[in-house]
């Protein structure tokens, strides 16, 4: 199967709606990194779009529009939590409550990582083939590289597990922090031995997405990904990845 076929299958499955939550997150990250893939998704949205239009509608409850208006009016911030707090919290209390809650969660998460006795301050990501799903018999969800981040030392180590040699091309690792739309390069990775890079500090990297692209030998000439995204993974505390 060629790279183009992979892109087409994955884009079509995403738009059709058959992917699970992890696969959907991988796709959404990849769309930001890979213009060809994003284009394939848009083309599938256009192809299948007429299907949504043949559904008979269902009348929504009458209070919905007022609820939308009050939430819009009360938005000081542009950030709307998707899983909204209970409806009785309205107005500024909603926005304040939601951001305070998010800050608390982030603090607790950071505390768990940095301060919990016995916590090594380590994050791990297994990079697997982009678009691979758990049910494939050959197990392509198994890791190709394992990335270990030592938060105290500010270092990331990339260990090849099942990486193929790619003559004339280089593997390059990118990190996409929470909320960012463009990835940052961590560096070019060896396919035969462990490679270590400095890893940026900051809470927004604690659950960052990682992607591996295939670039011209020596790495991307532009500082942005130019080659296909072939591997993806998410940083998480060990055992949660």
């Amino acid at each position, binding site marked *: 199967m060629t790279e183009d076929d992979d892109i*087409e*299958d994955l884009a*079509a*499955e995403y738009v*059709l*709606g*058959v*992917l*699970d*939550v992890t696969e*959907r997150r991988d796709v959404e990250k990849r769309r930001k990194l890979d213009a060809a893939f994003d284009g394939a998704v*848009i*083309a599938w*949205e*256009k*192809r*299948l*779009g*007429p*299907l*949504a*239009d*043949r*559904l*008979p*509608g*269902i*009348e*929504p*409850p009458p209070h*919905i*529009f007022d*609820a*939308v*208006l009050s*939430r*819009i009016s009360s*938005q000081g911030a*542009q950030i*709307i939590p*998707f899983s*909204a707090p209970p409806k009785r919290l309205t107005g500024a209390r909603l926005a304040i409550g939601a951001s305070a809650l998010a800050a608390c969660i982030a603090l607790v998460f950071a505390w768990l990582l940095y301060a919990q006795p016995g916590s090594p301050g380590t994050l791990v990501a297994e990079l697997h083939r982009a678009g691979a*799903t758990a*049910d*494939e*018999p050959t197990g392509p969800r198994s890791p190709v590289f394992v990335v270990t981040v030592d938060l105290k030392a500010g270092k990331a180590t990339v260990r090849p597990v099942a990486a193929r040699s790619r003559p004339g091309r280089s593997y390059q690792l990118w990190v996409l922090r929470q909320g960012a739309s463009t990835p940052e390069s961590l560096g070019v990775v060896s396919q035969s031995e462990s490679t270590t890079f400095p890893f940026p500090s900051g809470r927004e990297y604690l659950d960052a997405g990682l992607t591996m692209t295939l670039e011209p030998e020596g790495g991307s000439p532009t500082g942005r990904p130019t080659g296909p995204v072939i591997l993806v993974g998410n940083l998480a505390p060990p055992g949660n990845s």
Partner: protein
Amino acid sequence: MHGMPVARQDLVNALERIARGDKAAFELLYAATSVKLYGVVVRILGRRDLADEVLQEVYIRVWQRAGEYDAATSSPITWLATIARNRALDEAKRKTMRSLDDSPEALQIPGDDDPRATHERNEDARRLDACLDRLEPEKRELVLLVYYYGMTREEISDRIDRPVSTVKTWLRRSLAQIKDCLGQ
């Protein structure tokens, strides 16, 4: 007033005005499209309480992002339905506790002769229908079940008593056939 037919150009104009913060245009858009979008999210989520929340999120997102709509790329209803489907699918897949048996009557694929289906029979829709009709009936049904109800491979596998790998292969082949047939 809900679900009243509104011309495509009226929706395009409404989105332009919403991008400039026009709440009257937003109300018009809501009145013209919320019945359609609620139908989309209710089917995918299978639960009205979740659908109510997701529909609110969808329109808040429309309010925030109306400026990103590009009339050259898609019709307003396709753009809106894409936002609604993605929101609903994200929520449905995150929860994975929907029981399809809760509302078996909801699991029906609207037919071309369904009097409730008010879709415009435009050229794109006719071509897609023709391509779907060229699939084997069982596979056509699979494609539509996934699109309308966001069924996972596992749910389909249980429903049709075939392995998950077969479901995956059938869907991929059917989608490739649709693409070839549409020729785009």
